[in-house]
């Protein structure tokens, strides 16, 4: 199978869906000739024209609101939000309008749109271009949230998102745009709400999202060399969440660490840990551990930034503590 970058995978997904359905269009800042700062969309405007690859003024609430109205009336917009940090700017249109329209209208109006944006620190971009804010979105009923962890995942999840009749927010890991992975030539979709077990294990479960999937896989390698068998699971979408697969693994291994790049407090890790505690409590040999980004704004200095996000070594160290029973008596 050929290897392509995550950027190319997203580009292919968009091109395929735009060929398939003429109501799909892309809208955002510098999406056309510029192809975005990350060059993910390069070439699309040549094929689809500026009517369907629409450069906007720098006005995130405006083009987000416009996309909501366009989606309500028969199109499938893909909103390009240049940095995940800008999600604060579109909150009213995303959370008060897009998320609630189907419900408030008693099921009469649909908002089939995709917001594609990104997450991830360690790019030396400081506090306003480095955040991982998917928990904010996942908190709001009516929005689906996908977190691709490779080029393969990014393509399959994007195609599913575009065909979904609900608002979907996809957060790509901006540090992975140039990472290559095997991606089939033939068409495929990845259904939402179906977690991917990347590595089977029997001693401990590492649940990782997005950028943290590879961190968990590397941690599993480290642990394997010490004789600890770690299972690695990527939920792929956090709304909907494949609880069944996560609980099955928790019951099997009896120890779980949840790793996510959002801030640790009030975040994805806490939510997943809670669900496992509530539904698999008697199968657990240790508390479910949360590992998120430090609860600090992302600092600029590399010396500081690097210590704010979970690392394979950190995850492996926490796993050892769980295996040794240390955490049980921590309180």
């Amino acid at each position, binding site marked *: 199978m050929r290897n392509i970058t995550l950027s190319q995978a997203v580009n292919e997904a968009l091109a395929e869906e735009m060929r398939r359905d003429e109501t799909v269009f892309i809208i955002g800042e510098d999406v056309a000739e510029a192809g975005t700062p990350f060059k993910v969309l390069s070439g699309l405007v040549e094929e689809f024209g500026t009517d369907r690859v629409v450069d906007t003024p720098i006005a995130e609430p405006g083009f987000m609101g416009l996309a909501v109205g*366009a989606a309500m009336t028969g199109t499938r917009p893909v909103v390009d939000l240049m940095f995940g940090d800008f999600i604060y700017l579109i909150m009213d249109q995303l959370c008060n309008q897009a998320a609630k*329209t189907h419900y408030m*209208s008693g099921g009469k109006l649909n908002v089939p749109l995709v917001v594609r944006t990104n997450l991830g620190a360690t790019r030396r971009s400081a506090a306003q271009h480095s955040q991982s804010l998917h928990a904010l979105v996942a908190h709001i009923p009516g929005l*689906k949230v996908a977190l691709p962890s490779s080029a393969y995942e990014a393509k399959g999840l994007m195609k599913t998102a575009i065909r979904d009749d609900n608002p979907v927010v996809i957060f790509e890991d901006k540090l992975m745009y140039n990472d290559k992975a095997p991606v089939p030539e033939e068409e495929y979709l990845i259904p939402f709400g179906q977690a991917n077990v990347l590595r089977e294990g029997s001693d401990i479960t590492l649940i990782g999202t997005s950028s943290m999937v590879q961190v968990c896989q590397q941690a599993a390698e480290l642990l394997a060399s010490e004789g600890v068998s770690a299972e690695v699971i990527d939920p792929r979408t956090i709304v909907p969440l494949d609880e069944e697969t996560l609980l099955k693994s928790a019951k099997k291994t009896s120890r779980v660490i949840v790793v996510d790049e959002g801030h640790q407090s009030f975040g994805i890790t806490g939510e997943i840990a809670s669900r496992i505690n509530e539904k698999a409590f008697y199968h657990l040999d240790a508390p479910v551990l949360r590992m998120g980004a430090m609860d600090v704004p992302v600092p600029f200095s590399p010396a500081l930034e690097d210590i704010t996000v979970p690392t394979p070594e950190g995850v492996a160290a926490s796993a050892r503590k769980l295996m040794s029973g240390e955490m049980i008596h921590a309180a």
Partner: protein
Amino acid sequence: MSPAKKTSNTEDYLRMYRQMVRIRTFEDNANQLYLSAKMPGLTHMYSGEEAVAVGICEALEVTDKITSTHRGHGHCVAKGAAFKEMFCELLGKEEGYCRGKGGSMHIADQSNGNLGANAIVGGSMGIATGSAFTAKLLGRDDVTVCFFGDGATAQGLMYEVMNMAALWKLPVIYACENNGYSEYTATDEIAAGSIPARAEAFGIEAHSVNGQDVLAVNQLTQDLVARARKGEGPFFMELMTYRYHGHHVGDINREYYRRKDEERDWKDNKDPITLFGAYLTKEGIATKENLAEMQAAIEADAAAAVEYALAAKYPDTSEVDMHVFTDVKHALA
């Protein structure tokens, strides 16, 4: 009244009058339901502004779209909604337009092109502009009218979407209902400069019109809609009008921001229904008796709809987690 072309417009004029009376009657009933504690929540009366909604919506086809506001009952009626489903919605009943999930501030009636009322001031400006974007992208000839109040001109979203609408020549008409008050504050205190000039800054043709004169509103809208269909949009209208009630139904003691004699002057001298009724009788289009009969029929219709809605059933509690997502019957199951 503006000089009207009295040709074969009799039916149109009578329908406009009827629609204005329907709105006033709807609001009188809604007000009573609220004051008698039969209606939950909060609501905002459109009374006094009827010529705006009717003058505009009578210039639209059913395929044309509108977005509405928290003060939205008038837009909803004017775009073709029925009393029964509206009162059911106001009372949170299953047969409401939104199965009781939206209520007064969120009525949507997509069968008539009403994309919904919005409880965020200025919140639907993006939606209206996006609806016009769809028309352009898919080559449809429908036009979208975005209703909003003077208060919403303070929201940044308006400037962002007007900029895009002007750049891309979208078939949208921004209709600013200037009723002189931004919630509990005089508009003069919150809006610097001229309101139409805000649109003109983007190169959008803007008009200011007497919003109590249904024919003036209707003629202007007909002209702008026809031009918007030909790709000459967007347009901006400022409609000078007045709300008879407070900001919301419970806003009773409002002399700290609005004088009673001012309210009296608008009701006595600038009422859109009284003015148009006088015009119809003067021009021989209808007699006073005709109009009284029409009003009595509408009142009976409203009373029957209220009675129906009061007796109608609430949605089953199993509906609480329905319609969160289109493809999941029960989101919490």
